[in-house]
């Protein structure tokens, strides 16, 4: 008899236990997150956050976006250049497109392959009445030259598979080509003959050699007749004579706004006024990837101010790092300046050209 009682007791006890357990189980199932909505649950130490570094003190910003961005209509863009008349040349896909600053398409030059860089030279003809354009387009391994109407004038011979040309500059009789693949600057004459190699590592001439971790390697010729070359790996902009002697270098690493951030920056730069004497102050406009910043340095390389930071260059002013690798790898913007001192930033992700001009009185 008591045994039956005991049995009933057990039944009750077990019943309660099971009920309890079922409740727990249901809760567990409900709490189970298989879709990643709750996030990784990793601590703050595991977050990679550039929010703070991306912010730039508004007092440092000397420029403002002065016109609607130009939609280039490209799928990929590589380089931007501006001729002495202010026409904007954008190289992308397999085309060079020429716009006026209103964004009107003036001209199109079909290319045999994808361009890497370009520059435009204006040559006054003998009678100096008319003048004609020479457009130098650097492909991956060689240079093509076109006139203003897009007629091919010359195609120089390839520098080999290893070559990855990333920038080109012209000064009277010299054409300088930055070759990131061989990590060297080629100096051509205008007929396409190689007359010099600049920047190879040489201890006795204390030339450090170019340290180029990624295909960003820019150069330009200053009005002082010195060739300026970026040495991104050591965050320098170096000044060479056309003979290839390193005169001086400036630039320092810093994630802060005054220096160049990242492992290899700046990716591109332009010299205000450039070869054109009018209204130039010879200061540098540099462009960094990673933390996308366009900044101004004076000729001696001391920080002057900011043209645009991540907040200006990203829609909605949201400071963010790129998500997918593809975004990141396209992240190297290009800059150009016109004789009026406006800065043109080629956004290689959205494939648009943003136009910045100085704020009248930066209060």
């Amino acid at each position, binding site marked *: 008899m008591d045994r039956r009682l005991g049995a009933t007791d057990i039944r009750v006890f*077990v019943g309660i236990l099971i009920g309890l357990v079922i409740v727990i189980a249901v809760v*567990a199932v409900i709490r*189970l997150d298989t*879709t990643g909505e709750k996030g990784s649950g990793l601590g703050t130490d595991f977050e990679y956050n550039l929010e703070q570094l991306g912010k730039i003190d508004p007092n440092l910003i000397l420029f403002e976006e002065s016109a609607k961005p130009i939609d280039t209509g490209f799928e*990929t863009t590589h380089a931007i250049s501006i001729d002495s008349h202010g026409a904007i040349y954008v190289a992308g896909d397999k085309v060079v497109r020429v716009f006026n600053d209103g964004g009107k398409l003036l001209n199109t030059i079909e290319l045999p392959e994808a361009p890497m860089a370009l520059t435009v030279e204006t040559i006054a003809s003998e009678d100096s009445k008319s003048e004609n354009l020479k457009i130098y387009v650097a492909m991956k391994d060689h240079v093509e030259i076109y006139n203003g109407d897009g007629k091919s004038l010359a195609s120089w011979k390839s520098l080999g598979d290893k070559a990855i040309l990333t920038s080109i500059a012209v000064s009277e009789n010299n054409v300088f080509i930055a070759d990131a693949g061989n990590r060297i600057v080629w100096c051509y004459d205008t007929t396409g003959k190689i007359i010099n190699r600049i920047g190879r590592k040489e201890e006795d001439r204390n030339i450090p050699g170019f340290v180029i971790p990624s295909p960003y390697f820019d150069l330009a010729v200053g009005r002082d007749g010195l060739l300026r070359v970026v040495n991104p790996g050591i965050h320098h902009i170096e000044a060479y004579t056309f003979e290839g002697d390193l005169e001086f270098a400036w630039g320092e690493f810093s994630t802060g706004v005054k220096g160049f951030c990242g492992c290899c920056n700046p990716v591109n730069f332009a010299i205000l006024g450039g070869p054109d004497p009018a209204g130039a102050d010879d200061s540098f406009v540099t462009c960094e990837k990673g933390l996308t910043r366009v900044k101004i340095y004076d000729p001696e390389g001391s920080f002057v101010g900011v043209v645009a930071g991540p907040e200006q260059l990203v829609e909605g002013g949201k400071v963010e790092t790129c*998500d*997918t690798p593809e975004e990141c*790898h*396209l992240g190297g913007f290009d800059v150009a300046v016109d004789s009026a001192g406006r800065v043109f930033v080629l956004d290689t992700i959205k494939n648009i050209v943003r136009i910045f001009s100085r704020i009248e009185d930066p209060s």
Partner: protein
Amino acid sequence: MTNFRHITVTVVFVLILCSIGSAGAIRFPPPEFESGYELPDTTVPNPRPGIYDYIDTIVLVLALGLSSYLVLKKRSRKAIFALTVFSLIYFGFYRRGCVCSIGAIQNIVLSFFDPGYAVPFVVLLFFLLPLVFTVFFGRTFCAAVCPLGAIQDVVLLRPFSVPSWLENGLRLLAYVYLGAAVLFAATGSAFIICRYDPFVSFFRLSGNVNVLILGVCFLIVGMFIGRPYCRFFCPYGVILRQLSRISKWRVTITPDECIKCRLCEDSCPFGAVKKPVEQWPAKEYDRSKKRLALLIVLLPILIFFGGWAGYGLRTTTAKVHATVRLAERVRLEETGKVEGTTDASDAFRSTGTETSELYDDASNIRARFGLGGWIFGGFVGFVIGMKLIGVSIWRKRTDYEADRASCLACGRCFEYCPREHLRRKKDSTSQNITAEESDKAEFKSGGGR
């Protein structure tokens, strides 16, 4: 689950190609080192060779065969238990609960709906073999091969019988679960059987905390209620039930004839022992006839309403599909109904795809869930209807027998049958073993329960 559920090689390859396209940056050479530094290679440890899958298949066949033999010919609970433990160790702890016949349902279904997906050979076998065996020998797969069944069987300590009405009610869950699993697999949304597999995390000795808790709960219940998962949830079990109804050979409590000693009445922890059934009392009989007619009429109605309900659920069920979730999130962000973005929406935007494309995809998927909902709901309605009919007809039964559908062929009841003991005595004496030993043997063989 090794090489379970292929997506075709092409799909992968296309993905790779896309990624090349999207790569953007050109391959850039590493620096030339003057110190003669050599670029190391990235280590690429290989996965478990595919050949093992075929070993698994062989083991499965052997286990099934052996189990069938032990249940039907040898009628030895101890041996069955031993095999159970083996299966638990091999398919469970060694193979980490994968390959798994239960999960295989989803792969089969997906392979019929996803043009880019063909089910691997091994998975196909793991799905089919137990079914084929069941058609001939009853649920011998459940008895001693399925690791999920095994782990529940070994923890079963003090079984309490579940009243048959409750059992009938709870069993509906399994059908719903099966329906849902098929629905989500067919729409390529998720493999819920794997997501909510309560025991796999034991086999792996790690896993999501919530799943672990769920598993523990099942085991605790399993100590007092025989194999709760198998009886009330297992989607594969649902199929096996139906097949074992028509199996060629079947588990019988008694080796020869039933003497109605009632000893086996509560021998079965799974409530599969059916008592003899008397005639209906006359008045009950008439009423039940009417009722039956009514229920048969009711069946199509249930099916329709089931389908209708399933259709009504489409927006909810569609949320299980990642694309729909993403689309809804993006939509909410676009319309400013929610603040901020999620990783998913950021990732989506960084691909530069048009939102309209995403929305189109999502609404197509919803539409598919609409149709699927009709079928799913209809199925559930049908099941319920049939169950109602099933519980209101009954067949005269004279003997104690194991219910074909719900008998898991564990062989516990054998020990309770005096006829069985006689049989064994005969065998043992024929093998001239002394009565005493044989008694010991019998005694021990009371175990396993």
